[in-house]
């Protein structure tokens, strides 16, 4: 890591950036990431004045699933936030967020397996093969496994450039996750659409930032100004063309 901010650490409690993350930020994010689990436990057992849900199974399924999706979204937000807010070190938190996404997705599947279908393997197999929304969700979970397994420093070193190519799978996983959420709704798809919108913004950000985007709009140029001029020319000429 040789970004400029990392090169000149500001003194804070006399700790270097690395130690600050290890001793403060990471433990705080870790505990915060366990909050959804704590909330589920409180609801389930009626602790701290929470009311237990009537349909425990549905509640756990939905909570775990949405939390997994939220963590996927958070991992995808790390890049834009660290670039826009000039906080390059945020990258140090991304692995933990990704692993929590995997944790909650696994919990979601476990609840489905143990409590929803009561370990009826025939039904599980039938669901995964015949129910498209379950096929999609299951695929997303399976795709998360190699990402979790290759999240260690050693695997990063060993895979080198292939590591980042492999971890681009997260984009596909995010799409599958939102689609899975969308497809299980009976009719009210407002909430899944919010996730889809967020995904669109996150993908759009990456597209706008990539030099290739301008190349697509204005071949031969990677400069935004040239692309804008070309677009303006096209728009003007089509507007001035007489109607046929």
């Amino acid at each position, binding site marked *: 890591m040789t970004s400029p901010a990392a090169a000149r650490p500001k003194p804070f409690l006399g700790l270097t950036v690395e130690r600050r993350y290890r001793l403060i930020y990471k433990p705080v994010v870790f505990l915060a990431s366990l909050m959804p689990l704590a909330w589920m436990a409180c609801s389930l057992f009626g602790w701290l004045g929470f009311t237990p849900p*009537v*349909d425990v199974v*549905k509640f756990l399924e939905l909570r775990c699933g949405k939390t997994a999706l939220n963590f996927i979204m958070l991992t995808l937000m790390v890049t834009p936030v660290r670039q826009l807010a000039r906080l390059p070190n945020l990258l140090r938190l991304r692995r933990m967020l990704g692993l929590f996404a995997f944790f909650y997705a696994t919990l979601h599947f476990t609840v489905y397996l143990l*409590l929803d279908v*009561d370990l009826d393997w025939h*039904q599980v197999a039938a669901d995964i093969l015949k129910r498209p929304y379950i096929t999609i969700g299951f695929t997303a979970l399976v795709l998360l496994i190699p990402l979790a397994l290759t999240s260690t420093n050693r695997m990063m070193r060993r895979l080198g450039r292939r590591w980042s190519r492999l971890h681009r799978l997260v984009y596909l996983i995010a799409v599958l996750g939102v689609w899975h959420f969308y497809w*299980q709704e009976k*009719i009210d798809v407002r909430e899944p659409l919010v996730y889809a919108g967020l995904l669109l913004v996150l993908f759009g950000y990456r597209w706008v930032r990539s030099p290739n985007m301008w190349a697509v709009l204005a071949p031969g140029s990677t400069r935004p100004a040239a692309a804008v001029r070309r677009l303006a020319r096209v728009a003007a000429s089509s507007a001035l063309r007489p109607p046929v």
Partner: protein
Amino acid sequence: MTVRIPRIAPSEITPPETYFNRRAFLAGALAASAGAALGRAGAAVVPAAAGAPLVYSYDAADSVGALVHAPGQDEKPNSWEQITHYNNYYEFGTSKSDPSEYAGQLQTRPWNIAVGGEAEVTGSFPLEKFLNPYALEERIYRFRCVEAWSMVIPWVGFPLAQLLKQFKPTSRAKYVAFETLYRPSQMPGQRVPILQWPYREGLRIDEAMNPLAFMVVGLYGRVLPNQNGAPLRLIVPWKYGFKSIKAIVRILFTETQPLTTWSQAAPNEYGFYANVNPHVPHPRWSQATERRIGAPLFHERQATLMFNGYAKEVAYLYKGMNLHTYF
């Protein structure tokens, strides 16, 4: 404006065990006194406050009481808490907890019911007058949602067939259609076009005449809470829950099949008939099994029965029909 939801204190609610014991005791007393004092409850007088006790008859020897026992099913009635806090009632929001949270603001008095179409008696009737001819009875029915969960619920009401006879449908009346109240000011869900409001449902007239089709005004011996469809709802126990329309304000006898809300919203997923059928899956999920709300956590799932276990009583209605086509 926030309106306090009239809640019944937990201490006032009879637990299911006591409730059903008390009822067995009443039934015993009834048999002993040869129906002298408690007899048929007579004309239904429905008190205004949701949750207030109702007067109704219960006969333990009644065949309807036995209907609930189906092989392979856990038939323990769900608790008051479960039945009143886990509802699909999109007029108040699409979450299961929205109805119990927001239905308290619905004013169910005064309430008018308009009856029209192919019938000899038509007009608009205040609820009290509308309900007057019927003696109330209790029926414990399985309730199967199209989302593949189910409950067992002790309803209080009267057979739909009796209602139909009051209005004398003509020979042209092939269907009976129902409509829910449209009042966005008190039904916040109606401000969002999730479905085409007002909610509409309907039955073929012979389905409506089946003795199991039931008009409901009460639950657990009390006036129906708003979130369960007060003041008057339909229960068709062999069909998916969405057929059992709530807060009815209009009844129409028609010659042609009426439009129904869910089949309008997604015709490939929800049909007019919507009979509970384990062999016809919803396009996106299976209907072969269901989760019984409140059953032991690791054993909630059980087989779904044809016509929700009421095949003996209703299968004749669909003889010769392809239930994959008419789902």
